[in-house]
């Protein structure tokens, strides 16, 4: 599965979806984790107001752009309520580089722990996909499996990790550095 046509399509897809997603992940650190449901509620309402046909063109892009916008709006509102707060804590947190490093190390440790609750093959799939950037077809080949099974492993893994992982720790990894 290669060729200029496919490559162009993948690039297009990437630009349409992954960029808004990346922006959302980096930016939404401003929204406390337990606000996700409130953000989701607001995004949900906006989705309803939008023209369905328009949404269908690039649904993921719309989803994450809206989520990023809502998160930004909330962060601005929160900051304006307490204008001195950000600076105050900013000073505090600025001194705490070792704290941030420690928090990120903890987040990684937590992910490692959560990965431990998956099956070995699920871990192998994730390791190949995220650790080595291997595509799904190759993963299936290397594990002597089928793409369908790899897909199912991924689905189950994501579902499990979502239950296992604490959102707040995950957000630490998106913060600052890198």
């Amino acid at each position, binding site marked *: 599965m290669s060729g200029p046509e496919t490559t162009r399509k993948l690039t297009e897809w990437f630009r349409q979806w992954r960029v808004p997603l990346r922006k959302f992940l980096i930016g939404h650190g401003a929204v406390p984790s*337990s606000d996700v449901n409130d953000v989701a509620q607001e995004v949900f309402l906006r989705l309803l107001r939008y023209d369905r046909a328009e949404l269908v063109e690039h649904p993921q892009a719309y989803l994450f752009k809206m989520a990023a916008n809502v998160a930004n709006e909330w962060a601005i509102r929160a900051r304006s309520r307490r204008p001195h707060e950000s600076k105050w804590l900013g000073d505090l947190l600025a001194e705490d580089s070792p704290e941030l490093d420690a928090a990120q190390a903890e987040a990684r440790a937590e992910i490692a722990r959560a990965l431990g609750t998956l*099956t070995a093959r699920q871990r192998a799939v994730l390791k190949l996909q995220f650790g080595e950037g291997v595509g799904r077809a190759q993963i299936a080949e290397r594990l002597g499996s089928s793409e369908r099974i790899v897909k199912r492993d991924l689905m189950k893994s994501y579902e499990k990790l979502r239950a296992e992982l604490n959102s707040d720790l995950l957000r630490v990894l998106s913060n600052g550095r890198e």
Partner: protein
Amino acid sequence: MDANERRGRAAAEAAEWWVRFESGELSRAEREEFVDWLRESATHVAEMIRMAEVHGGLERFNDWQRVSTEGWDAPENVVSLDDASSRRAREASSTEESQRRASPRSESRRWWLAAAAAAVVVVFGGWMFFASQAQVIETGRGERRGVTLADGSVIQIDPQSRLRIRFEKDLRNISLERGRVLFRVAHDVQRPFVVQAGVTQVRAVGTQFGVEQAREGIIVTVAEGKVMANTVRSGGDLRVGLRRARSVVERRPAVDGAERRPGHGGEAGRQRARARVGRRASRVRQRERR
């Protein structure tokens, strides 16, 4: 189907959608299906956001070496038993779990106690009496002061603040009468560090946090700690553990009068606190009646 089941199913569906997206373009029919699914429920939207977080975490995870994949080719793999659901099952038998009620907002908040021990901030209400001899610090308008206390703790005092410092043999007591102070508490397990503002007490063991006496109540901002998820409503008890390196926002729903009597012991009932961990400000807000 209760809220938990709905969310569980939404999570499974979101995982499936995510995997479908990962591989590339979706057909128009699939995209229509996705949009319709999204517009069915805010829970679906929320689960997609959570899925994005998980995915983001995995992408940023760079410690794959330590992840063992041994036994991947075995026919049936054994999954570790110490996962969230078995822990939940263990905890469910305790009174704490059984008394937990769903918050007014439809989605229940899940709380996690991280495995590693960390600093915990406990806020509880009660009467406190001031000792007569104490060091008083007061700042004027526009005056900011940094003070190092006898135990090595450092406090930064905002303008127009006033506090009393009373260190005893087994207690380090600060009473914030007015304004805002940021504390960096020196570790000393023998002597708890307690900050009191009004009828609220903040107890710290090696954390950084700030307490503010505002007109609308007491605001405690924590920059370090771990979150524990308990609010005991009666008597103004609010127990919060804070997650490290980030501050916590805790917003309590409107409290009815009867339960705000200071000094009232016992538990009228527990109430799920809404705690959020934010990158910037987090505060524990507690309404108090004077």
